[in-house]
C-alpha cells in the first residue's frame, strides 16, 4: 500500500493524501461534520487540486463498498454462504423408545439421512463425538448437524 500522508486542517478537519501508482496525487478531506471530499491534485501546480465529489458520511460508506474496501466482508460472506445450507438440531428421545439400547451404528443414521450425530446430552452431561457403538437411551438429547431435510429425516427415524 502507498504511504498515506496526514495533514490536520484546524477548524476544518483532516486531509489524507497519497501518490497513486501512475504518479497522481489523490487525497480525501474529511470535514468535522463527517462530510468527505475526494481531491485530485494538479500535475502542473502540485499545490492545487480539484474536488471531484463531496460525500456525506453515508455516501462515503457506499463509495468505499464500491471501491472494494469490503474484501474482508466478502470473505466473511462466503463463509456464511457455505454454512447457510447447514443446520444444527437438538432432538430429544422419548423415555420409552424403540431406539433405546440400539447403537448409533445400528441405526445407520448418517447413511440414511446424511446428518451426523455430533454429540449426546445425557443427564446434563454432554458426550462429544459419540462413536458408532455408542448406545442411545431414552431421555437422551441428540445433537446433529446436516441439511434441513436430512435433519427432518433423522428426527423422524429417532422418534419413530
Amino acid at each position, binding site marked *: 500500500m502507498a504511504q498515506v500522508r496526514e495533514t490536520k*486542517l484546524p*477548524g*476544518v478537519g483532516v486531509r489524507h493524501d497519497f501518490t497513486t501508482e501512475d*504518479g497522481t496525487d489523490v487525497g480525501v478531506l474529511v470535514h468535522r461534520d463527517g462530510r468527505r471530499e475526494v481531491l485530485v491534485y494538479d500535475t*502542473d*501546480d*502540485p*499545490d*492545487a487540486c480539484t474536488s471531484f465529489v463531496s460525500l456525506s458520511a453515508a455516501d462515503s460508506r457506499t463509495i468505499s463498498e464500491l471501491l472494494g474496501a469490503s474484501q474482508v466482508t466478502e470473505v466473511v460472506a462466503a463463509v456464511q454462504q457455505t454454512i447457510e445450507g447447514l443446520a444444527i438440531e437438538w432432538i430429544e428421545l422419548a423415555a420409552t423408545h424403540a431406539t433405546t439400547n440400539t447403537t448409533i451404528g445400528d441405526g445407520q443414521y448418517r447413511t440414511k439421512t446424511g446428518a451426523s450425530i455430533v454429540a449426546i446430552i445425557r443427564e446434563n452431561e454432554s458426550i462429544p463425538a459419540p462413536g458408532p457403538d455408542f448406545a442411545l437411551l431414552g431421555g437422551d438429547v441428540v445433537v446433529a448437524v446436516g441439511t434441513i431435510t436430512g435433519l427432518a429425516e433423522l428426527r423422524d427415524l429417532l422418534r419413530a
Partner: protein
Amino acid sequence: MLIAAGSSEVALGFIELGALIFALALLARFAGRFGITAIPLYLLAGLAVGEGGFVQIDVSVEFFDLGAEIGVLLLLFTLGLEYSESELKNGLRTGLAPGLFDMVLNALPGIGLGLILGWDPLAALLLGGVTWITSSGVVSKVLADLGRLGFRETPAVLNLLVIEDLAMAVYLPVVAALIVGGTVLATVTSVAIALATVATILLVAVTYGRRLSDLIAGGTDEAFLLTVFGITLLVAGIAQQLEVSGAIGAFLVGLALSGRAEERAETLISPLRDLFAAMFFLFFSFQIDPADLLDAAGPALALAVVGILTKMATGWYAAGRTGAGPNGRMRAATVVIARGEFSIVIAALGSELVDGPELGALAAGYVLVTAMVGPLATKFADHIPIPAILSQRHTAANAPGSTV
C-alpha cells in the same frame, strides 16, 4: 403593552430597524454574488445613515447600540469556539515562528503610523492590532467558496489564523486592561489579573473543557441555545464589572466549550452572530463622521498598501515553510490580506480614548480596502505575475512534479 397600544414610536422603531436590516440583506446578497465579504459594505451603509450621512436614524439607536455590543460578544465567542484545544496546542507548537513573523511585520506599521500621527501610545498599540489581525471569518469563507480547503498551502494559512487567535487571547485582555488605566500600579495589577484569568480559563478549558461541555451539551436546540447565550452574556457582564472587557469574557466562554457542545454552539449561535455582528459593523461606522473618514482617507490608504504587502509577505513565508510552490505561496499570500471583524472590534475597544474617533475612522478605511482587495486578489492569484527573484529558487524543485 406598547405594541398593543399602537405606540407610534414603536411603529417608527420597527420601520427603521426593518428598513436597515433589509438594506443589510441586500448588501449581503450583493457581496455574495461577487464573492467578497459584506463587512466593508455594512461599514459603508453605517456611514450613510450616520451623522452627516444621507438618512438619519434616531428611534432605534438605543436598540442598535445594545445589539452592536451583543454582536461583539458573539464575534469573540465564535472566535474562541473556532478551534479545539488540540488544534490550539498543535498550533502553538508548529506555528510560533510564522506567528512572530506575522506579528512583527503587521503590527509595527500600525503602531508606527499611530506614533507618527502623534497619538497616545495606547491608541497606537490598538492601531497595531487593527493592522495585524487577519479576518479569520473572511479567510475561511473565501477558502471554502473557492474550493481551496484541500490545497497544500491551506494548512499553513489556517495555522496562521490559529496563532493569531491565540495571540488575541493575550493581546485583547492586555489592551483592555490598559484602556481602563489608572495609576501605573493599578494598570499593572489589572493586566496581571487579566492575564491570570485567561491563563486559568485556558488551563481549565484544556483539562476539564470536555467534561464541563458535556454538562451543558444535551437538551433540545432551544434549551441549548438559551443556555449558551445566557452563559456568554452573564460571563461577559461579570467580566465587564471586574473591568476586564466583556468581549474577553465571551471569548473565554467560547474557548472553554469543546466536543459536542462546541459543534452545537457553532451551528446554533452562527445565525444569531450574523445578525448581531451586522448590527455591530453598521453601528461602528454609524458613529464615524464621514468628514473624519475623508480626513483619514490618505493615511488609511497608505496604511492599507503597507498592510497588504506585509500580510502578503507573511502568507508567502508561512506557505513556503510547508513546501508550497510559487503559485501556492501567492495564493496563501493573497488570501490572508483581508482584515475585518477583529480589526473593527479592536478599534471599538479604543472608542473612548482621546484619539478614538480618528482610530475608528482609520480602522474603517483600512478594513474597507483590505477586505475588498483580499478576496478579489486571491480569486485571481494564479494570474498575478510572481517576480522572477521570488520564483527562481523553486522552479527547479517543482520540475519533477510537472513532467508526469
